[in-house]
């Protein structure tokens, strides 16, 4: 098993020598993959990560399930809203719930998260009101929430740009902590999680971010959700080696985890965050998962992949396997699952009503946000627009007569 070859948290080093060579893993993804909860709902063991899984109370496991179910229900609602013309676009996450909830729940409040644009599940774990996510897709805002409130950054649409922001932020944390330690502070240590996908892994910014992170030993966890498809292009076009093996080239640990196994994802991310927070540098996690739906609501997967592939991955569903486990262990009963459904519908109703109430901003606000300090050109153009608009005052009333 690949698990025994992983760097252990007790060793003050990368443990890279213990990692297997690149070749074997590409033919058999499972060989180098950390998995605790299999598709059959049975909990396996791992010499390093079982210790993390053992810390999880039934309450937390039920929470993972509730989170995954909620965000899946949210995803369905948002997709429906797009179909009904309430959103310009939607980016579905179905299939990736375990990767997102498992990693998001491993973060602590003081950590800072840089998502790409599909991290709705992570947003949920950071207590972002999911209705806020829709502002971006409804054309209300290019952001939508206050990133400083939940340490959850705005969605970044230019692929991989945020991986560099993550490393810079982590370099800031390093400096802050050095100062705090000098002042005798006991504040909890922080790390950054940089989310990106298998497609974005080809971007130069991912390379540069890993170079910078390694050079400065920055407390950052690179969390790559390998969902197998960058719109229509399969992962094989992005990489000839398993993505997690790229970490070796930068000199820090890389781990492939079953991205549909929320327990393993949580364990691995907790380990990686501890590693980063303790000053031992970055970690790359490749969460091996699958985008069951389309890239966006504008995409048509039937043009580039077989439905049999989707069916096979549905057999590895992250919710199904946790449900099996919770039931078999007696950790959750029917009443629990019923309550999850009710809560999901409640969330969906909240999201729907909030989204439909989201009105476009006053265009004048667009002028205000360009610069933080007064700017004569922006002021001049706003004044012109006000004057221009004033010329139409009263026209609307007349228009209704026609």
């Amino acid at each position, binding site marked *: 098993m690949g698990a025994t070859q992983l760097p252990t948290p007790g060793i003050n080093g990368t443990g890279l020598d213990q990692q297997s060579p690149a070749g074997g893993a590409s033919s058999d993804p499972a060989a180098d993959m950390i998995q605790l909860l299999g598709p059959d709902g049975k909990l396996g063991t791992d010499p390093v990560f079982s210790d993390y899984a053992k810390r999880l109370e039934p309450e937390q496991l039920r929470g993972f399930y509730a989170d995954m179910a909620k965000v899946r229900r949210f995803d369905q609602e948002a997709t429906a809203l797009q179909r009904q013309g309430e959103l310009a676009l939607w980016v579905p996450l179905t299939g990736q719930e375990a990767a997102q909830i498992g990693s998001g729940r491993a973060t602590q409040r003081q950590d*800072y998260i840089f998502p790409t644009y599909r991290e709705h599940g992570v947003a949920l774990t950071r207590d972002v009101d999911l209705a806020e996510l829709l502002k971006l897709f409804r054309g209300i*805002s*290019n*952001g939508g929430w*206050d*990133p*400083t409130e939940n340490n959850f*950054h*705005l969605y*970044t649409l*230019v692929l991989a*740009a945020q*991986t*560099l*922001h*993550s*490393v*810079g*932020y*982590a*370099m*800031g*944390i390093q*400096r*802050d902590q*050095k100062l705090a330690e000098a002042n005798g502070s006991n504040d909890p240590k922080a790390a950054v999680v940089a989310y990106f996908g298998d497609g974005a892994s080809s971007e*130069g*910014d991912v390379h*540069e*971010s890993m*170079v*910078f992170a390694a*050079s400065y030993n920055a407390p950052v966890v690179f969390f790559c959700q390998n969902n197998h498809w960058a719109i229509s292009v399969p992962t094989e076009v992005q990489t000839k080696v398993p993505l997690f093996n790229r970490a070796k080239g930068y000199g820090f640990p890389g781990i492939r985890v079953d991205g549909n196994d929320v327990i393993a994802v949580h364990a691995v991310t907790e380990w990686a965050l501890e590693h980063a927070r303790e000053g031992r540098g970055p970690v790359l996690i490749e969460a091996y998962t699958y985008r069951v739906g389309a890239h966006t609501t504008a995409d048509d997967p039937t043009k580039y992949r077989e439905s049999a592939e989707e069916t096979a991955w549905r057999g590895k569903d992250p919710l199904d396997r946790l449900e099996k486990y919770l039931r078999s262990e007696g950790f959750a009963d029917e009443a629990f699952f019923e309550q999850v459904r009710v809560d999901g519908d409640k969330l969906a109703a909240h999201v729907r009503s909030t989204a439909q109430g989201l009105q476009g901003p006053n265009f004048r*606000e*667009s002028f*205000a*946000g*360009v*610069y*933080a*300090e007064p*700017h*004569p*050109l*922006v002021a001049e153009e706003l004044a012109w627009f006000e004057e221009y608009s004033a010329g139409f005052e009263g026209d609307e009333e007349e228009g209704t007569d026609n």
Partner: protein
Amino acid sequence: MTTMTIAKAINEGLRASLTNNPKSLLMGEDIGPLGGVYRVTDGLIREFGADRVVDTPLAESGIVGTAIGLALRGYRPICEIQFDGFVFPGFNQITTQLAKMHSRSGGKLTVPVVIRIPYGGGIGSIEHHSESPEALFAHTAGLRIITPSNAHDAYWMIQQAVDCTDPVIFFEPKRRYWLKGEVDTENPGPASDPFQAHVLREGSDATIVAYGPLVPVALAAAAAAEEDGHSIEVIDLRSISPIDFDTVTTSVKKTGRLIVAHEAPTFGGIGGEIAARISERAFLHLEAPVIRVGGFHMPYPVAKVEEDYLPDIDKILEALDRSLAY
């Protein structure tokens, strides 16, 4: 008052910023023990340490991208891009992220990053070392762009860039790095507003607007024109975004003639923007069309012929002649 070169003035300005603002830090290639390829950061790593004068990996997108992250954490990074022509690997981060972060967040986030870029030609160098890409950045809302032409301005403007809440591109006229001037390190005087243009020489017959490396050329052209009996006003624009159109308009209303000179190609350049604005603001005061003196529509030429490419005193005088004769 102290006499120093522009390079030294920027060095002293950076030293002052690092001293006064504990959140400021320098990042760039070879800026540590070497002090930068132009030695602008000379000695700063000894004084402030490697956490605040950061020699980075050789990656411009990485420099700008990590600077954005540091700014989001509350820092004020000052990035050095080694040469104008090497900014483009970082162009994506500057235009899609740095420029838009404040707006994207609805004003909740600020990214006070300074990007220093030595720019312009006239140094006899190889490809990518002599360009003037300021218009590409001026076209991007969310950025501010300033460029000093003398040591006193350089000393104060770099500090003002660091203090600014918005991202600032700070273009340094590299062929003037060794130009000496008086610097008052106690009092900025007229340099208190980095976004204000300065009338460096008053005149009544025509106005020359220039910035950065061409300011001394414009002043020399004005002096030469005076010998021919023409009274020429010279404006140092200092800020390319925003542009202080009020100062330019006031001048043109007085002189009726305007020449804009920059090293960058005229097509799609700052001169065209000034010409358009001035035609809107002072059309009836113009005695002649606004004339641009600038680079040609070609990649920056090889060093052996760059003198033919660059605006110089004669080219500005020729433009003045045409304007005055119109």
